[in-house]
């Protein structure tokens, strides 16, 4: 049954502003949906129902007193790797069990300043390492379109919540595809902004040179709305860019007539693309052409090295980023007996999951004396080549379009014993992440089993406005995003 919980953010804001609904009712509707579906989906690790209702009541009062704020009274879910003051933040890991941050991430501060209602923290692959949310230390999340399927990952909890109406929008994080891939699998919109567009302060790092916070929403306009709130310089994050933040919701509907859209042929041939995905892509391209865009086939020749490059750089950074989880200052400490080394070994051995330990070892190896040049330095060189691929492509075209993932949502447990197969899921999402360019996934159809397919848009650095405009035009023509899952 469709309720207030199925509204987009901008629809809800219209109703709130015209006093047809209250923020309290809206949050209640979302909490009712959580009550109805959460036992099957398991999107949340930590739901703060009481806090959310209090924030909603406060938002209603503020609206009555004439306060205007971009997200006043909108219930939003937050991925568990983003620090929330006073709310347990575990990053999906047992090692952080019980850790309550004494500060808000800058992105959370922006949300709160805009009047958003924070619902709670969503499930994820531990430390954002995974593409299925099966690597969580606290159980798996199920895809609302088919409960036997994964929701994607690592922001699987956020994507499932938005898809099923357990939140109007959510924050995820994307290191190599962790916003776009679950958005594609769950039939919603997922935006990864340019590297440095949204502050990383308070985001628990996986791979610092790749991590970006991004919104998961039910349509492109909502993504634009959230990005306008979240983006901007932050003196606490030296990698955050000072570029001014436009109101991304303005000028969305100016159309794409004459827009030059590049189709990277490397994203099509021999990459294990399912026929349903290929078909959806073909239809999408026809649609864009019909809207007046000019399609140009081109090459991104270093695409094939993306995954290898990514797994060297990301794991190298992660191996040091995760060194702080040592049982000394926060989270769990397992020190049954013995020396300091044993305390480290027990705490990290038992507190961290298999995939996390695998990546820490990979990264440690990559940075080791004697291997550093062959692996880390070489990977950095290839990263530069991949960036140049995109630079050259954007000399010819305004936007690039391709599939978000080679397949639709796979079965729970299908890839769990084969990490390499799992890594291949990120083949199209990784290169733009390495290049630091803005990119997003938009629903573009369904396969024979009714599983959603995602279309990926990519734009030059800091050209989010351009990116959103193209995605918006496509969405308006197809309305794939209007379909919602029915749990059964």
């Amino acid at each position, binding site marked *: 049954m469709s309720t207030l919980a199925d509204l987009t953010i901008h629809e809800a804001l219209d109703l709130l502003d015209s006093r047809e609904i209250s923020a309290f009712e809206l949050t209640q509707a979302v909490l009712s949906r959580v009550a109805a579906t959460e036992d099957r989906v398991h999107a949340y690790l930590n739901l703060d129902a009481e806090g959310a209702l209090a924030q909603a009541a406060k938002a209603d009062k503020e609206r009555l007193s004439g306060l205007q704020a971009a997200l006043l009274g909108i219930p939003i879910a937050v991925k568990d*790797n*983003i*620090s929330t003051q006073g709310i347990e*933040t575990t*990053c999906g890991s047992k090692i*952080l069990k019980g*850790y309550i*941050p*004494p*500060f808000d*991430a800058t992105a959370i501060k922006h949300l709160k300043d805009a009047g958003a209602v924070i619902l709670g923290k969503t499930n994820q692959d531990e430390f954002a390492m995974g593409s299925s949310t099966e690597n969580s230390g606290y159980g798996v999340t199920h895809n609302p379109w088919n409960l036997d399927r994964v929701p994607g990952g690592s922001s699987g909890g956020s994507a499932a919540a938005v898809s099923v109406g357990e939140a109007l929008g959510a924050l995820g994080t994307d290191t190599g595809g962790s916003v776009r891939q679950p958005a594609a699998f769950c039939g919603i919109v997922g935006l990864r902004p340019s590297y440095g567009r949204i502050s*990383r*302060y*308070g*985001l*628990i*790092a996986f*791979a*610092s*040179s790749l991590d970006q916070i991004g919104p998961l929403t039910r349509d492109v306009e909502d993504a634009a709305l959230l990005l306008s709130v979240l983006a901007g310089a932050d*003196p*606490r*994050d*030296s*990698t955050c860019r000072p570029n001014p933040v436009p109101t991304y919701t303005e000028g969305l509907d100016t159309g794409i007539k004459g827009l030059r859209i590049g189709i990277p042929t490397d994203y099509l041939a021999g990459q294990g693309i399912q026929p349903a995905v290929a078909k959806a892509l073909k239809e999408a391209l026809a649609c864009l052409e019909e809207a007046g865009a000019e399609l140009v086939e081109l090459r991104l020749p270093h695409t094939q090295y993306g995954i290898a490059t990514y797994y060297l750089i990301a794991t*190298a*950074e992660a*191996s*040091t980023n*995760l*060194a*702080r*989880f*040592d049982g*000394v*200052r*926060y989270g769990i400490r397992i020190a049954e007996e013995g020396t*300091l080394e044993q305390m*480290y070994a027990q705490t990290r051995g038992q507190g961290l999951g298999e995939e996390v330990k695998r990546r820490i070892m990979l990264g*440690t190896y990559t*940075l*080791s*004396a004697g291997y*550093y040049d062959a692996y*880390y330095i070489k990977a950095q060189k290839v990263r530069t080549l991949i960036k140049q691929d995109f630079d050259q492509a954007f000399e010819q075209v305004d936007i690039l379009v391709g599939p978000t993932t080679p397949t639709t949502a796979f079965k729970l447990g299908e890839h769990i014993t084969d990490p390499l197969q799992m890594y291949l899921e990120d083949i199209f999402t990784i290169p733009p992440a390495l290049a630091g360019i803005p990119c997003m996934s938009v629903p573009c159809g369904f396969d024979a089993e009714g599983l959603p397919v995602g279309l990926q848009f990519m734009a030059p650095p800091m050209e989010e406005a351009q990116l959103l405009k193209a995605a918006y035009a496509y969405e308006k023509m197809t309305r794939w995003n209007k379909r919602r899952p029915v749990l059964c």
Partner: protein
Amino acid sequence: MKYEAVIGLEVHAQVHTRTKMYCGCPVIEDTGQLEPNTYVCPVCLALPGALPVVNRRVVELGILTGLALNGTLQPVNVFARKSYFYPDLPKGYQISQYELPLMTNGYLEIETSNGIKKIGITRLHMEEDTAKLYHEAGKTLIDFNRAGIPLLEIVSAPEMHTVEEVKAYAMTLRDVLVTLGLSTGDMEKGQIRFEANISVHPEKSQKLGTRTEVKNLNSFRALAKATDYEIQRQISLLRDGEMVIQQTMGWDEQQGKTYPQRSKEESHDYRYFPDPDIPPVEIPTLWIEEIRNQLPELPLAKKQRFIKTYRLGHYDAQLLVADYVIADFFEETVGRRPNLSPQDIANWITGEIFRLLKERQLTLKESGITPPKLAKLLQLWHTGTINNNVTKVILAEVFNTGIDPEVIVKREGLAQISDAQTLNTLIDGVITAHPQQVTQYLHGKHAVLSWFMGQVMKETQGKANPKEVQNLLRIHLEQRRFS
């Protein structure tokens, strides 16, 4: 066989900026005095999600030091993660510099008994201090107040050969850092720490010996003693036909011995790589030139100038230039043009004022003495208005209270009695009262003269001009010979 030692020094100096290296927490000079874990934040505690931001002032002071050490400055500075696990290192890595340090190829001139010598400085880089561990009753407590305090690491080339050179290098470098205003140079508070790389080889051989690294030397004394001990230890090993093992050594202050900490096989692989949280810090030439204009005169140059311009002795000049506050104080006092020589002023500063500073545990700026006041006081002393002892008493009062010396002299009636008529009457009285001592004097026992001096001083509460009294006493006594 004679052996030669080859020594290089690594120096870690805390930089006293307003805030820490990568966060906004205040830098407190002596964190040992604080309530533990009160000057901390998410960044220096390495809470999940916290990010470092480079303190530009440290870069500035690093450039200043690089210029003072005559080195080549790196136009693009890269910060690197140095990884190892230890509870005093909250992130599990230290943010330091590796491949592209702030400065390379510098040198420091030191003064030894063989004259001036240049010691090469391989590199200077910025990094952060660790937390402090306290081991109590089987438990370890951690204080993070010190974590994240900026450090400069300065690495010399292995170009020193004697303990004397090592000491001269360490002290000269300390004086430079104090002069540049980035350290108070207080060794007891751990603000400057040393590590010595030491090897020995037969004097005739060109081939260097196996080196050891002696860590955690926190005073000049420990540095000198440990270096000396380690050189002797290695020489006796070689004399006995044994090998020196490449390893890290500790220094046991109580026993006066170095001891092995870990060998090369156990040494860390720090897995350095550029910190992705910190974009490279560019240092444009314009910035360097701006900083170059702030470069003060360095101690050794100042010392040479003091010797030449003020005709000071080496020793006094050295004492004055060790701290630029003292050196400036000296020069300002001289600039007041009192009628006495700079050497006299230097003597008063390095003698009585240094004694007072040590006794009261104050810095010059915390005391009441200023160059104009010292100049005035010494002027009174030089003209004989007050004598030595009275000068010391007044100096102490000025030091304590800051009251003008002339005011004290007037208030206490401390002006020296030099007036001949007053003194003649006084001396006549004393001599008449002690005929026995007069007889002794006249029989050749001239030591009695100083006894009479004492009597006169007693009568005048020490205010009589001693030179004058001595003259007059002799005249008066000799007169008795004929009466």
